[in-house]
């Protein structure tokens, strides 16, 4: 019997090859990356992730992460960990603060490959973790290739 190369099998093979070429991080990998930095179960709240709903250019997506904290010696945000679930690597950045920071907020620009979710975890000085996330729709991806 002759094996037939139909349009369907050809398309499926092509789709498979494309998936294999672009190995992007998944939500689980983003969570694993965050968990490798901040041990424990984060609660919702206190953290705000600000980013545009639609980013036309994934090369430089403005992102602001802030955490509600008095930033005193007694109670302050020790670190903010930021990941995304659709880039080649899940990590975006880590920021460590001290009470000298005055306010736990950072702004930066990041590359997003596709429409994906940005997840931030904040670690307080007593070890409690808080989290928030935001999805950004990306028109043109920004990781080269």
């Amino acid at each position, binding site marked *: 019997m002759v094996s037939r190369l139909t349009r369907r099998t050809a398309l499926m093979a092509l789709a498979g090859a494309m998936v294999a070429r672009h190995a992007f991080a998944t939500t689980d990998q983003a969570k694993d990356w965050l968990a490798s930095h901040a041990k424990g179960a984060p609660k919702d709240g206190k953290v705000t992730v600000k980013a545009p709903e639609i980013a036309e250019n994934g090369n430089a997506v403005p992102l602001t992460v802030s955490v509600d904290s008095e930033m005193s010696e007694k109670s302050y945000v020790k670190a903010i960990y930021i990941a995304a679930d659709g880039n080649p690597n899940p990590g975006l*950045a880590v*920021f460590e*603060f*001290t009470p000298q920071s005055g306010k736990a907020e950072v702004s*930066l620009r*990041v*590359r997003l490959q596709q429409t994906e979710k940005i997840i931030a975890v904040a670690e307080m000085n007593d070890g409690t973790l808080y989290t928030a996330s935001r999805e950004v729709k990306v028109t043109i991806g920004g990781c080269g290739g």
Partner: protein
Amino acid sequence: MDDIKPRLRVPPSAKKGEVIEVKTLITHPMETGLRKDADGKLVPRLIVNSLAVTYNGKAVLNARLEPAVSANPYLAFFLKVDEPGTLKFTWTDDNKQSWSAESKIEVA
């Protein structure tokens, strides 16, 4: 790479106890290691992977950046000014090359 220059925007003075916003940018291509050049070869990863900020020698912010941070990494953050002093920035890249900049803040 000689064209790498840090840029700062720091208020020259603040009231005692005031929390001020500090903006920084360093011109750097932030090669992810995933991009291919015109010949189809992968361009090796070379990014600024950290920024350390101190005020009068005390830590204010330590940033660890991943390749997902855009080229010419821009960062804005805050500083509580309790006394006059010097805000010092040190960026380091994957080759352990580093760039520093500082800015003085008066207390009015």
